[in-house]
């Protein structure tokens, strides 16, 4: 074998070793979720022999994960839809108007990536309360759409700038108006970045803890992280049960990630060029 090949094998072994160290918390998560309290007390690090699945059923019912999953799904899906529509249309303008008003608005949107949401947290809480949207889906959807628009606009604008403007121009010359040029020509071209927009926003919205704790606490519309938070507080010493709950709660978003993961790297690559 050539020295270069040996080096590649060496690197591969090194990376696998890093992954094994890196995966230790995940090993603990999965093995503990399949042990009963005695197995955990006797040998916390050993594999779960024999494994039990009882924790999963118990966690599902005592964390009321069913309703929480419905709440999280509704809020995430509607927010994503609005983010895609508002983000892509907004970027259609901002990407092609690079001077004057367009530039000013683009900078204004970018400001939203930097501003900590905590600065507006209390006034926004008052506003949502005053229109009676505390404890409702629409309050959360409005919040997530607004708070994630800057990042979404940033991703879409970078991507549209890298597209040749000729397609839309040809459509306009052929008699389309801007709305038609956008819906028929531009938007279909945005599919890769829409994949990125979906996964990055879905991860943020699905996992957000603070806002639903504040806006949905006690409403019965709590999302998964809030449900898990109070569940963990209740069963704090029963690691098997708690970890089974964490596994169940993390599964949906991990599955979405596995399905869309190729868009993540592509999307970042596009964002770097923009």
């Amino acid at each position, binding site marked *: 074998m050539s020295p270069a090949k040996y080096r*590649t094998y060496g690197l*591969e072994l*090194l*990376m*696998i070793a890093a992954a094994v160290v890196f995966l*230790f*918390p995940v090993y603990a*998560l999965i093995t503990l979720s399949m042990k009963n309290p005695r197995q955990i007390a006797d040998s*916390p*690090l050993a594999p779960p022999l024999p494994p039990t699945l009882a924790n999963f059923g118990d966690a599902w019912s005592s964390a009321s994960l069913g309703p929480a999953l419905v709440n999280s799904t509704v809020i995430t899906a509607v927010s994503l839809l609005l983010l895609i529509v*508002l983000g892509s*249309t*907004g970027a*259609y*303008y*901002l990407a*092609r*108007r*690079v001077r004057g008003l367009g530039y000013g608005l683009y900078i204004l*949107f970018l400001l939203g990536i*930097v501003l*900590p*949401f*905590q*600065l*507006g*947290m*209390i*006034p*926004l809480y008052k506003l949502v309360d005053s229109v009676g949207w505390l404890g409702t889906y629409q309050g959360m959807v*409005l*919040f997530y*759409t*607004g708070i994630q*628009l800057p990042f979404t606009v940033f991703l879409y604008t970078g991507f549209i700038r890298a597209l040749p403007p000729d397609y839309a*121009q040809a459509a*306009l*010359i052929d*008699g389309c108006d801007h*709305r*038609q040029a956008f*819906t028929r020509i531009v938007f279909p071209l945005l599919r890769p970045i829409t994949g990125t927009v979906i996964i990055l926003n879905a991860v943020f919205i699905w*996992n957000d*803890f*603070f806002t639903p704790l*504040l806006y949905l606490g006690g409403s019965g519309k709590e999302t998964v*992280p809030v449900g*898990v*938070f109070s569940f963990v507080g209740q069963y704090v010493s029963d690691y098997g049960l*708690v970890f089974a709950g*964490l596994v169940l709660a*993390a599964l949906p*978003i991990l599955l979405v*990630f*596995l399905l869309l*993961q190729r868009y993540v*790297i592509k999307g*970042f*690559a596009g964002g*770097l060029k923009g």
Partner: protein
Amino acid sequence: MNSLPETAASDLPARAPGKPATTGEPDRTRRGGRRHDPTVPPWAFVVPALAVYAVVVLYPSLAGVGYAFTDWSGIGDFGFVGLDNFRTLLGDDRALRSVGNTLLLTLAVVVVQNAVGLLLALGVNANIRSRALLRVIFFAPAVVSPVMVAFLWKYVYNPDDGAGLNGVLGALGLGGLRQDWLGNPSLALWSVAAMVVWQYAGYSMVIFLAGLQGVPAELHEAATIDGAGTWQRFRYVTWPLLAPALTINLMLSTIGGLKLFDQVYAATNGGPGTASETLSTVLYKEAFVFGKFGYSTAVALVLALFVAAVSLIQLRYLRAREVTA
């Protein structure tokens, strides 16, 4: 140039008859009054996004700046108190400690997360067989809720001798290194930092990877022919071309570190004592535990100024050293 051909729109015939709009919106031309301009002007595209952004981010942030100068308690009337909140902050040991902690935590996370992310990216960008799987493994924690990661790491940091990290250290014969990772005031902040790095190193990796994939192979070949070794190729070819990825990574991890809340709240709640208190946990407690909304927004304003200052400095410095292939 990069501009929409605005003029074309009104001179051209409107939509062909018999071809309804695909969006399902009512046709504006039929509602009267708009017949002379049947097209949607380009600026109209940005209006809905701007409206939502203004209601959710711009207006509340501006109002927040206003509240920072009041003694509002969350209910009833409040008065303008000038700079009192900021003077209070300067004399508030817990708040000052949180400023220090936030900066230390951010520095630790930014440096370690990006260093680890870069090494991982170089590894999984190489021609190794397991690279696709490794990319997924390293990125996966970034997809999981920070609160859940914090609960998982509370177990890893379990003070019991046989469980979690202490258990592993014992099994490896390194029992002398066992610690009460979250309960020891001088370790708690660093333990939180390690947990954050574990969760987001893969995120940095993916951004560096995107940068690495934009480095043309010919440049490496040319450098090799010129006799450059591995380190020289990295230092003089790869590293300068990674500048845009580095800019984004440093900015995202800095902003994320300065705003960090969920992980601290769930893992230590700022403790023990005030050992891991950050600006975000202090402003949360001041507002929702002590009802000092005015003071809390003043803390938020300080946080915002920190974030803005650091991002601007980074952007200026980092953009200046970016080159293109």
